[in-house]
């Protein structure tokens, strides 16, 4: 049952996202992120198999690109940046990590139960779709509850992953050129964001976005 394998991997990815919500260590977060993204490259391969060899080559290329760029490249870059700024922990902003964890679980539940009702077409795959949307939610929660600029990038990447998951499992036949471009777009975004974070660290001597409130009204 390939489909259930995809569901399993999707659920696993969502679970990593939930775990990330509870983790305060920056480096551990990135490792989880890498793991999560690696799972997607697995999903990508499985999708390729399930398409009965029609676009096998394209799926393999996509899986490889995801693995290299998103699962390896981006986390490594972020780890390097975090190291450079000697950032170790993000303790969270309004909600403490345990609360966030519970919220993330809620997002998973919501994704599982609610999403299939209106975000899936008839022949679609409800579980993966739910997990994809759950990732979207978790990414938002992550961004809203974290304090550091670099965590927001992480949150953004979780959202991006959710969308990617949805695209893989639901939007079948999506031109791979587009998917590829999306991946590279993410890479560029992270690179630019990373550079900006580095400059923020240099200028502000911190990367705490809750304290970046000079521009208001």
């Amino acid at each position, binding site marked *: 049952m390939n489909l259930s394998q995809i569901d399993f991997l999707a659920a696993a990815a969502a679970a990593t996202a939930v775990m990330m919500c509870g983790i305060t260590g920056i480096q551990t977060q990135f490792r989880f992120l890498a793991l999560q993204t690696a799972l997607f490259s697995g999903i990508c391969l499985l999708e390729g198999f399930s398409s009965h060899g029609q676009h096998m080559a394209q799926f393999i290329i996509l899986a490889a690109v995801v693995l290299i760029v998103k699962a390896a490249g981006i986390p490594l870059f972020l780890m390097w940046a975090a190291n450079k700024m000697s950032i170790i922990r993000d303790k969270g*902003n*309004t909600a403490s990590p345990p609360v966030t964890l519970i919220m993330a679980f809620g997002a998973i539940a919501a994704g599982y139960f609610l999403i299939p009702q*209106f975000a899936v077409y008839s022949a679609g795959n409800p579980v993966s779709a739910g997990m994809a949307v759950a990732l979207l939610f978790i990414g*938002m929660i992550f*961004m*809203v*509850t974290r304090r550091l600029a670099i965590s*927001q990038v992480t949150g953004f990447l979780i959202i991006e992953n959710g969308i990617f998951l949805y695209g893989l499992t639901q939007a079948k036949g999506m031109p791979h050129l587009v998917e590829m471009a999306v991946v590279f777009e993410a890479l560029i975004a992270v690179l630019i964001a990373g550079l900006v974070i580095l400059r923020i660290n240099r200028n502000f001597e911190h990367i705490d*976005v*809750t304290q*970046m*409130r*000079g*521009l*208001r*009204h």
Partner: protein
Amino acid sequence: MSLFNQFNEVNEAGFWILTAFVLWMVVFATGLINKKHTGYFFPAVTITGCLALIAGILFSGKSTVNILVPLPFFLGEAGFDFTIDPLSKWFLAIIAITGIPITLFAPGYLHHLRNRTFPGFIWAGFSMLLLSMCGVVMSSNAIAFIVFWEMMALSSFSLVASDNEQRETRRASFIYLGATRIGTGFLMAGFLWAHSITGSWSFSAWGITGAAAIGPSILILIGLATKAGCWPFHLWLPIAHPAAPAPVSAIMSGVMIKTAIYTITRLFITGSHIEFKWLGIVLIVFGAISAFWGVIFALLQHDLKRLLAYHSVENIGIILMGLGVSATGAANNIPLLTQMGLAAALFHTLNHAIFKSLLFLGAGVIDARTHLRDIEKMGGLIHKMPWTAAAFTAGSAAICALPPLNGFASEWILYQSFFKLALNGPTAATRLTGVFLMAVLALIGALAIACFVKAVSVAFLGLPRTDNARRAREGTPQMTAAQVFLAVLCVVSGLGVPVLLNPLSQITAMTGTGSMIGNIWTIPVGILTIILLTTVAAIAIWMKKLSMKNPVKSYITWECGFGDLSPKTQYTATSFAQPISSIFGNIYRYALEVTTHGRQSRHFPETVEAETRYEAYLETKLYEPFLNWIKKFSGILLMKLQAGSIHQYLIYMAIALIILIRIGVVK
């Protein structure tokens, strides 16, 4: 080439009017470029424009002229289309004949502002104001109307703000701009509504009757009332007019606010484009309140220009009463009443334009020569500036509707129409309204007399109260000429009523029943004036003769034996107005506060200060709290929403998502 050909089809009248437009545009452009020029170029060209306008009016005769400005000039769904019918001509004439003396007056006045303003800019704004006012009263469709209406507002705003180094002036100009824009907002809403009912932008195609007319009518009327300065939308008027340079106040108060009167007439009365059952009573009620409100607040003012501005509120109220009577007549099918009310209102519009410009010019001379606007600091100016004093007194007599001047002529016709209403009104309530209006107008007339006696006597008579007043001197000959010209116009239009009834009857014929006002003027005012003047002359000569025998002795004013009086002992404007003001004290919480200074202040005060205060409830209890509330709300909105926290912004995004899904997807 085609453009030329299309203009060629317009007849002579159109040619002259377009010439005026072009001349004013030349002044506008030159003024912007040559901002420091103070020579005779600007006034000369502007006056030539006014003369061209008069030529256009005269050439058009009784015919209605249509001017269609050719493509590519166009405004989306309607063109710059002008219709010049008797009503337009009446208002064009008002613009031209007040424009000429004001233009003549302006250089002398602007000279004293030369260090604080750019004369070129003022001329640019002034010519644009003239142009846009002409545009307003000629536009035959709503879009062109709004365009000119807004240009009028903007140009007058720029003029109000011309002396913008003063903080007060800036504040006044912003208040003016805000008020006028709110009015335009209402007007736009009304026009759009009327358009959605009729499907046309052309005024002549707007035939709205019945319940459908109520909504657009109310919106349009509020918009116009704001421009006209009708209670309770008059707030901006006494603030903006004093801030503007005197020629500008003169044209704004004399002519600009009348464009609203024009529009009411155009839309609601002539031709009955919009029929609205309660129009008459609405106009009457608001007119009466404005008239009373204006004059009673004018009594409280010491600032000469503010006082005059409040009198504009009063006179707009009087005009609106006339229009209200006219509308009542139309609603009850009494054509003579319709025409009399309309004729009175329009005639008073002309007259008010004349004497109000005259009075503002007088205030301008004083301002230019003494740098004073507070009448409490003036006094005795009649000895230093006799011409101004005489002209101002004539203007005051005219605005107080004293015979034989023009104010009397129009108010008399107005009284006649009230009487007609009281006589022929359909119901007892309507008839009683007629009587009531007579009483109100009499009360207002008496209050106006009180107010102008105060203004004239405190400013011009008695002894000078300050050094500035002592050093006063007469304005330049042009300034004097402008005032004398207007003063003569006051007399001429007061005596020449039968002649003026010709164009008026052309307008009243537009109400659809043929003109009936040919012989409403029954007073032989010419003969009576001659008799009066003869009597005056006879008595004067007799007095002169008697004084040959027993010459006049000159001595100090009686002082109860204390020696010559100091100017301080004169009656002040505040004291003069105090009895009347305290009678109506409930309207504005009038209070006299006496403070004494000194050690044993109770019995042996060193100085005693008495000051009257008033609080205008409309401003302090309604407008100010409302504006403050909006400001506060805006501040809170900004402070809370735009707090700088990126987390917050992300949460908005989530909330927006939920709302959008709720509206768009979940049924």
